[in-house]
């Protein structure tokens, strides 16, 4: 296989390589020390009012969520016209969306619901895929230090993936949960929706409720565990080999491969949860 690089590609790749070497020299000269205590900690910001449930935010999650949304919106607005004979990028996009559309079409047998469910599933898939892939690229991140405040790391850690925060995943799973019941009410009517909780016999009601609530919890925890566990594993194995070559492959495996698979699984389960309720 022959790879053709344009001049701008060469400049881009060369600057990344130069940045790596500069960071390596910086790390070696300043004696960077890595402590395993505090690996799972986040930069948490206390809002000025109260100590209640909604009084603390994770600034990195908010920054990165908005950055990824802005990136996606920017890429979408860059597209002028879809051509009949697709180019490379358009073919990739069409292949991804067609795959999701086929998944939805195979599992939903009410025709009028295929399009709205496809919109939800494709939006979830693109956002989670983008954030998981960003979580595998080395970049800028902020970690807390003792006694308040935070430290900014450049290129020695990956970008902060918003899906490695449980709050983000619970929000996505809760969204799927609410949407699935909204679709169920629309498809079955209110009475049959209520009645579906008392099937097959009336005293199974608590079991049905627990089953419904367990769905978003396991849905959220699956994505959270994979992304955050992968991130911590990367840090620890990278620490064991003193950041020598191995982190690149770990970023590739845990970020790109597992990230893509987990995004696909989140989408497939969302489609399955929605389509199992509207039948």
């Amino acid at each position, binding site marked *: 296989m022959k790879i053709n690089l344009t001049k701008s590609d060469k400049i881009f790749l060369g600057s990344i390589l130069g940045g790596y070497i500069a960071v390596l020299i910086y790390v070696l000269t300043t004696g960077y020390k890595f402590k*395993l*205590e*505090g*690996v*799972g*900690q986040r930069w948490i910001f206390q809002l000025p009012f109260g100590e209640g449930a909604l009084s603390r935010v994770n600034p990195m999650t908010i920054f990165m969520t908005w950055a990824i949304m802005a990136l996606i919106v920017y890429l979408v607005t860059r597209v002028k016209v879809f051509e009949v004979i697709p180019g490379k990028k358009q073919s990739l996009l069409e292949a991804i969306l067609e795959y999701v559309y086929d998944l939805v079409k195979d599992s939903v047998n009410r025709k009028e619901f295929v399009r709205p469910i496809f919109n939800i599933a494709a939006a979830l898939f693109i956002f989670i895929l983008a954030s998981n892939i960003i979580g595998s690229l080395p970049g800028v991140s902020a970690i807390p230090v003792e006694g308040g405040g935070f430290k900014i790391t450049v290129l020695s850690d990956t970008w902060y993936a918003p899906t490695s925060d449980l709050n983000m995943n619970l929000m996505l799973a809760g969204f799927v949960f609410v949407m699935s019941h909204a679709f169920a009410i629309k498809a079955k009517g209110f009475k049959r929706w209520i009645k579906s909780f008392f099937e097959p016999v009336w005293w199974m009601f608590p079991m049905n409720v627990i089953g419904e609530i367990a769905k978003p919890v*396991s849905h959220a*925890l*699956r994505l*959270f*565990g*994979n992304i*955050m*566990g992968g991130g*911590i594993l990367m840090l620890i194995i990278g620490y064991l080999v003193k950041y020598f070559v191995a982190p690149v492959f770990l970023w590739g495996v845990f970020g790109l491969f*597992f990230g893509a*698979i*987990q995004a*696909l*699984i989140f989408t*497939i389960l969302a489609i399955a949860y929605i389509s199992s309720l509207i039948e």
Partner: protein
Amino acid sequence: MEIGEGLMMLGKYLGAGLAMGIGAIGPGLGEGRVGASAMEAMARQPEMIGTLTTRMILADAIAETTGIYSLVIAFMILLVV
């Protein structure tokens, strides 16, 4: 080191090791079954290898969820608390 602190460390390390070790049994068995069945199906119908591989990876990723839970719990015991 006080004896209380030592007991706490003992509990932490024992708990994390047990959580990961016992939690890895189930996903191991599950993924083994998925792989075995996929291999059987591939041997029977070699023309479906492409589809079967994707489905196998998906089923593997779902089966390993409980193992990932115990991994997160072990990390939380070791590093966060």
